[in-house]
């Protein structure tokens, strides 16, 4: 078996068949000297659906990914440490008052992006969040209408065969989820017990892992290593759900291909991308370039592509590329039960309450949800050292209560702030490219929201009979912002079609375009917007407006 980390697999007219050990599928390949219709940089929650849909519409498309092309059945161990291979672990400098922890929390480096290791939580935004400035008084409005998004959410949920409840307890009516909800584990039942004690609704979490067979995907076997890659292919990552469709529709995927610079021509339009693959720099010509590298790599590439015509970086006449970076608060509360919970069984977040996303009687902006938890040993041990400062015998003793632990973690909205940003450091990486510096400080509203959530989660656990509760105060996850979407070129980077205001054939299609981040996991929204963007591109092409 070749090492996917050192030699590309998607070459010689074929790509790995992720569903068959040692299998291959045919792959179309394009020449570097002939311009393809679209180069898409990144194959995750944004790039994956976009590449697929563009190819299905008949465009010539190449999807670039800096990471390897994994074969989950053969390459994925049931092991926290080995599976660090899925993360973006290249050096990044973090600073600010609350430096962000990068890596497994929020960054993937693989065909499929971070969806290869995401926790599969697939929630819709609350409709008002698309107009949070006008309707809720904070952040910025999106140039999108929630009713249109509701249709694209539906498409994304179908494409990913989301397993979820028959009736979702919050927000406007939505259709039944395509697959039945998963059985809840003990940790999820404790969430339900606590929510009911507080008078809050809860539901089995809509998840992108199938509860019944789907094509070549078998149903989830509840092994619980979801965040370290699904070795069974039950998880509907981009690697499994969309990319095979893209290949079948004639797209090319280039793995282990790091794009370092976007080139622009005399007319100011993008002409292609410089990328490093198989030991040397190469150039691919393209009629359109879509950046889908997520909220760190996307602004990094746009800034690094600065040239004489665009000295501040591409698409940056607003000065907002790299600014308004947002993460989400991911604090938790944990404790012990007399019962054996064995929280590692099954997907980690099988139950959720969105109560505080839909309840506005509170003294801060933004919302949050919380979910049941199932950290594996290393994650749990480092939570104990980080939150309680435990080490020595005290840590080992506490770890032996692993099967009795239970907990809740929030996904909370942080507000956009221009000073939270991505810039380029002077230090360079293995490709010779300047590494990103990520500056982040929590605002007052962020801190109030976090404390509110910690109090609520702690009360709910205690009402559920959980003892010895403690708080994990410092965790964050998910990314957004840095190339925000808007209706005015002066205050945004891209328009509602994810098209940059400055360079009409340069697009951004990932979580970077979020003006606000909401209180739910972002991946389903990213994918829904990608599907919309593909439809918009088709419509613009039909009108000769590309």
């Amino acid at each position: 078996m070749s090492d996917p980390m050192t030699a590309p697999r998607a070459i010689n007219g074929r790509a790995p068949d992720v569903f068959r050990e040692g299998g291959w599928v045919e792959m179309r390949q394009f020449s570097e000297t002939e311009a393809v219709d679209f180069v898409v940089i990144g194959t995750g929650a944004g790039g994956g659906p976009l590449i697929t849909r563009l190819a299905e519409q008949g465009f010539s498309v190449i999807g670039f990914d800096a990471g390897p092309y994994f074969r989950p059945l053969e390459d994925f161990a049931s092991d926290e440490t080995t599976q660090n291979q899925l993360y973006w672990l290249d050096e990044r400098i973090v600073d600010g008052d609350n430096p962000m922890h990068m890596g497994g929390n929020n960054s993937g480096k693989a065909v499929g992006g971070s969806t290869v290791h995401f926790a599969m939580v697939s929630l819709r935004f609350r409709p008002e969040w698309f107009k949070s400035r006008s309707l809720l008084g904070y952040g910025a409005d999106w140039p999108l209408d929630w009713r249109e998004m509701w249709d694209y959410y539906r498409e994304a949920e179908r494409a990913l065969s989301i397993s979820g409840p028959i009736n979702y307890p919050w927000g406007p009516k939505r259709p039944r989820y395509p697959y039945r909800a998963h059985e809840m584990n003990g940790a999820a039942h404790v969430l339900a017990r606590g929510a009911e004690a507080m008078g809050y609704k809860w539901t089995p979490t809509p998840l992108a892992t199938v509860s019944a067979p789907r094509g070549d995907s078998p149903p989830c076997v509840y092994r619980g290593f979801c965040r370290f890659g699904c070795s069974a292919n039950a998880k509907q990552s981009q690697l499994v759900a969309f990319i095979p469709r893209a290949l079948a529709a004639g797209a090319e995927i280039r793995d282990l291909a790091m794009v370092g610079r976007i080139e622009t021509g005399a007319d100011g339009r993008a002409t292609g991308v410089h990328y490093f693959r198989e030991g040397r720099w190469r150039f691919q010509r393209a009629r359109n370039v879509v950046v889908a590298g997520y909220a760190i790599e996307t602004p990094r590439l746009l800034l690094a592509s600065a040239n004489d015509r665009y000295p501040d970086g591409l698409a940056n006449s607003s000065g907002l590329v790299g600014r308004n970076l947002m993460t989400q608060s991911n604090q938790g509360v944990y404790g012990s039960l007399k019962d054996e919970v064995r929280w590692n069984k099954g997907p980690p977040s099988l139950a959720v309450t969105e109560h505080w996303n839909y309840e506005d009687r509170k003294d801060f902006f933004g919302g949050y949800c919380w979910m049941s938890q199932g950290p594996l040993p290393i994650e749990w041990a480092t939570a104990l050292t980080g939150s309680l400062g435990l080490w020595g015998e005290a840590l080992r003793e506490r770890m032996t209560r692993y099967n009795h632990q239970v907990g809740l973690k929030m996904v909370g909205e942080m507000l956009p702030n221009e000073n939270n940003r991505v810039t380029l450091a002077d230090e360079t990486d293995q490709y010779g490219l300047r590494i990103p510096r990520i500056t982040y400080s929590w605002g007052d509203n962020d801190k109030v929201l976090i404390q509110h959530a910690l109090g609520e989660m702690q009360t709910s656990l205690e009402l559920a009979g959980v003892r010895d509760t403690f708080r994990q105060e410092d965790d964050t996850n998910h990314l957004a912002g840095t190339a925000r979407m808007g209706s005015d070129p002066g205050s945004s980077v891209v328009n509602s079609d994810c098209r940059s205001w400055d360079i009409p054939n340069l697009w951004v299609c990932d979580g970077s375009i979020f003006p606000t981040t909401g209180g739910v996991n972002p991946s389903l929204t990213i994918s829904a917007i990608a599907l919309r963007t593909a439809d918009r591109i088709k419509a613009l092409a039909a009108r000769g407006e590309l």
Partner: protein
Amino acid sequence: MTDHFPGYDVLRKRRTPSWDERTRQAINDRLSVPREPRFLSPELFAILAAACGRIIPQPPDRPPVPVAAMVDTKLFESKRDGYRFASMPEQGEAYRRGLRGFDDAAQSLHGRRFAGLEPAAQDQILASAQKGELDGPAWQGMPSKMFFEHRLLIDAVSAYYAHPTAWSEMGFGGPASPRGYVRMQLNRRDPWEAAEAKPGEEDRVRWENEHV
């Protein structure tokens, strides 16, 4: 420390449907990690080994975990975390400074090398680092609290809890592919999971654990 899971050895499942080939390979590699340092000098490695021995003491009755060798391997293979605090140097340099800093503290407090101190004296120096109280030329401005909490503690603990000895000791099911789990409810144990001993049940539980 009481053994809550008598007779449980996660490695018994190595040849069962709970372990696939890729996982067997990964854990075999981990069990055979070279015990000699390949990144740190023998001198610094001795300090690291002593510190790891206090941060995560070894169980007396299970195979020892080569924590320091696993940390050295991480450095040797340049396995990074994906981020670096602006106040911290690159990980290898952080260890060179921090470990020398422990030795300097041992010299100035006790006139001896860190590795040769009594456990209680070693603990005291580690606790000072945790509080950010260590300083001096060896540190070159690196905050000792950052080194202890965000470098040494995380690396040592992550190494220990990546080892089957730790999984057995805490009753963790370990690798679970392709078999996965069936019994999801509270207080339900799949027959291939560790059984926990309550007083008086040790013999029955030992039998259960020998048949995972």
